């Protein structure tokens, strides 16, 4: 645990502390060329120091902004430390960001130095260089393909490091003074939030705010320096930085960088993380993979799996409700753990997970319960970039699937009459970068931040989130409508990847469906349905029938809850194309950008409400126009379910 850390108010000071306290313990592991290579805390500190000295020679100054562009790699983390040693501000970017998005961030934050992973990222930067006069220096890590680049702005990480190692002896005093000059009130990071509405905003967070939140989280999770976490989420997202940089800096635990995103599962299995952060999207993908493989196995194994999981769910539900579990159920549960759940946890690389959080978006209750029934201590975490991520967390022994748990230490919550959640906490952001007007609108004089989320506190003190304020609406007959809930129920089903529900101000709910290609194509193979590609498969009548079945199930679920019975899905259409971040339909973390989607598919949505059975979509910029069919879903009468209930 972290004791006697009171003077350690910045990340560079924490780094030096770890280098002295646990110098030979692993800080970062990276699988490279088939072997896990370890960087110890001492090595990390030395590399960061050398890099900082060399970067200052290349003109990096206190208060300047340094962007990081690449996947989770030890060298980019070292660059993060080095920049902060000099008092510079780190701006982590999404590695798949398009050149234009990068340009707008660099211009807005006046970034002077960029650490880029490889040629791909350098190419994007060079393309926007003429538009970004502030950009002076691009450091690249992997030199593959870089031999022919002659631009004066470019310098390789290796040569920078070498230069730093030569200079470090004479400059050590300078560096120590620079580190000592830093205080907790200095800005540590600017995160450009993807934003489900409007353009990205730069959220300014100080060292003190992040360190405070990480200490609180470490206490809740009882984290130790022997813990291990995977660094696999987008590095531009605050969640990855909190679990891959901020918390390791506070606690001293080790992070592991997988070889590539393709090898993530295998790498995770090799390292056996004990502390895990996953987005609902990642968990959905894992669940779908499990279901898909189970559907393809033999009848006996399938029955065994179903039986064991049903028993596990039952036991899990009773335990959460605080009821006693019968001896018979306990026995079945033990056998199930031996035969099914244990091996499944192992395959998912989660055998050793002590604490796992899901954050970043709302999670479906069934999805959460699947992983809990598997025996993984998965809990919900509520927070956003502006609030330093840790606002509310589910606690062991008090987990209710419909809540995000109790507010964490230091957080004050207040609700407006419109049910918007206001947060005041030491972890709150300082401001939006260079945008005083927006800052003033979001954060009032008393320090309350408007989260933009609608929710309420239950009598048990636990926070419940309804949806984004902007999404919460009502049907024309006055029934409450919160699209996220419906969509999450749809996305829980294996054949549906994304769903977009419409209904605010309308007289019924309609949905756009994006099929899960992997599962649906295998289903089509089994049914001997031939198709040429995504668009063709999505337009098949058989697939419409398949999705209609899925929607019927969801409608039955909705009908069983009186408050949601009116929100049953009346009509739906299957999109011929994946929703993707590149065409603006999703954020880089995979959340829906409703306005953009509504705009793009306006004709289709109007046709759904207009009662037509198909719509013609004009393809934007070079895409072929497509005919999309619209079908009715079966409704379940609430009266009928009342009888059944």
């Amino acid at each position, binding site marked *: 645990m972290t004791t006697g850390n009171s003077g350690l108010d910045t990340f560079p000071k924490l780094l030096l502390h770890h280098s002295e306290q646990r110098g030979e313990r692993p800080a970062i592991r990276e699988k490279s*060329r088939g072997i896990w290579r370890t960087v110890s805390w001492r090595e990390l500190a030395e590399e960061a120091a050398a890099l900082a000295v060399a970067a200052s020679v290349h003109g990096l100054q206190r208060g300047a902004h340094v962007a990081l562009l690449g996947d989770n790699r030890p060298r980019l983390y070292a660059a993060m430390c080095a920049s902060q040693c000099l008092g510079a501000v780190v701006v982590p970017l999404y590695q798949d960001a398009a050149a234009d998005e990068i340009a707008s961030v660099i211009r807005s934050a006046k970034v002077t130095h960029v650490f880029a992973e490889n040629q791909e990222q350098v190419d994007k930067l060079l393309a926007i260089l003429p538009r970004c006069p502030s950009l002076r220096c691009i450091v690249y890590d992997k030199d593959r393909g870089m031999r022919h680049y002659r631009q004066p702005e470019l310098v390789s990480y290796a040569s920078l490091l070498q230069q730093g190692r030569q200079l470090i002896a004479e400059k050590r005093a300078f560096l120590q003074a620079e580190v000592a000059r830093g205080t907790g009130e200095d800005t540590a990071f600017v995160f450009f939030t993807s934003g489900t509405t409007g353009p990205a905003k730069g959220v300014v967070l100080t060292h003190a705010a992040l360190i405070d939140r990480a200490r609180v989280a470490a206490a809740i999770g009882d984290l130790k320096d022997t813990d291990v976490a995977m660094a696999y989420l987008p590095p531009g997202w605050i969640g990855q930085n909190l679990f891959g940089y901020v918390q390791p800096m506070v606690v001293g635990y080790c992070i592991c960088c997988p070889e590539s995103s393709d090898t993530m599962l295998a790498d995770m299995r090799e390292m056996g993380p004990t502390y895990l952060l996953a987005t609902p999207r990642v968990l959905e993908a894992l669940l779908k993979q499990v279901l898909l493989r189970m559907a393809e196995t033999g009848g006996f194994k399938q029955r065994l799996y179903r039986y064991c999981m049903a028993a596990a769910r039952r036991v899990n539900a009773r335990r959460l409700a605080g009821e006693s579990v019968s001896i018979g159920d306990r026995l079945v549960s033990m056998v199930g753990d031996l035969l099914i759940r244990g091996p499944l946890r192992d395959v998912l690389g989660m055998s050793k997970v002590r604490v796992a959080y899901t954050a970043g978006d709302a999670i479906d209750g069934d999805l959460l319960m699947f992983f809990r029934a598997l025996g993984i201590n998965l809990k919900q975490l509520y927070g956003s970039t502006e609030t330093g991520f840790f606002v509310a967390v589910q606690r062991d022994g008090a987990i209710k699937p419909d809540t995000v748990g109790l507010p964490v230490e230091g957080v004050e919550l207040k609700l407006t009459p419109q049910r918007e959640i206001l947060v005041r906490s030491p972890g709150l952001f300082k401001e939006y970068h260079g945008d005083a007007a927006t800052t003033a609108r979001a954060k009032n004089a008393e320090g309350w931040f408007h989260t933009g989320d609608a929710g309420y506190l239950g009598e048990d003190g636990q926070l419940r989130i309804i949806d984004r304020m902007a999404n919460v609406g009502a049907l024309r007959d006055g029934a409450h409508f919160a699209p996220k809930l419906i969509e999450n129920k749809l996305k829980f089903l294996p054949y549906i990847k994304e769903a977009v529900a419409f209904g605010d101000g309308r007289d019924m709910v309609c949905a756009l469906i994006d099929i899960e290609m992997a599962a649906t194509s295998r289903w089509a193979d089994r049914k001997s349905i031939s198709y040429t590609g995504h668009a063709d498969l999505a337009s098949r009548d058989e697939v419409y029938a398949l999705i209609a079945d899925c929607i019927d199930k969801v409608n039955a679920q909705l009908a069983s809850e009186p408050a949601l019975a009116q929100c049953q899905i009346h009509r739906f259409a299957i999109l011929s194309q994946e929703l993707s971040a590149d065409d603006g339909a999703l954020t880089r973390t995979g959340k829906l950008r409703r306005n953009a989607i509504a705009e793009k598919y306006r004709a289709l949505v109007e046709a759904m409400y207009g009662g037509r059975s198909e719509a013609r979509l004009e393809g934007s910029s070079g895409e072929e126009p497509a005919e999309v069919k619209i079908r009715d879903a079966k409704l379940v009468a609430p009266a009928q379910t009342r009888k059944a209930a």
Partner: protein
Amino acid sequence: MTISVPSSILQSAQRAFPFGPPILELEQISLRFGGVQALTNISFNVLEHEIRAIIGPNGAGKSSMLNVINGIYRPQEGSITVRGEHLAEMTPTHAAEIGIARTFQNIALFRGMSVLDNIMAGRNLHMHATFMEVALQLPRARREETENRAVVEEIIEFLEIEHIRKVPVSRLPYGLQKRVELGRALAAEPTILLLDEPMAGMNIEEKQDMCRFILDVNDHYGTTVVLIEHDMGVVMDISDRVVVLDYGKKIGDGTPDEVRSNQDVIDAYLGVAH
């Protein structure tokens, strides 16, 4: 069909490995199978660090030419000179020893073995431990295994096939199998790499990937590449010089632009009564 390869790499930038003297010279090669004249009086050379293509319509003798270089076929007439050294008799083993590696038109991998093991097999010439040393895992065998594995892992990273390292080759799609075969040839650390239709049967993305890898191999390791291909577009984009064969005769030789404007070549491809 055109394949986009960053033209900047080819033309404007300086080469990491400038062309050297001829590394491989073929003089007046003639090859007959009984009465069939497969190759007639063919001469050309390959410069060090060059990408040299051999093109021609089906049955032009391209693969025969490669097999002659590789020592599989022994020509009745003509001579082969490698690095100035005149070779009276070329055999496949000898070819491998002097640094010539190749891939095959029809993939010739060990189908039941993993990608890693297949590429390790390419290190054959770099392993000196005896059967018993390996069986008993004596120090030399273990040291060699580690050294060779390091080279193989570098190639795996180079070809971006980390995710299939342990997958049996038979389970891979065709394009990836081709890439693994390239990896096995690279594992021998060749000075001359012979590629027999590296892009045959591939879709456009796979072809683009393969082009990039061939250019990268040439750029990164300085390997001289001799490749056969009948997709003209691909060849013209990535080769430094091209030899054109038709009915076992050389009908053109020069840079892609020269070859493209050669009337004989145009006739051979568009078809003119012979």
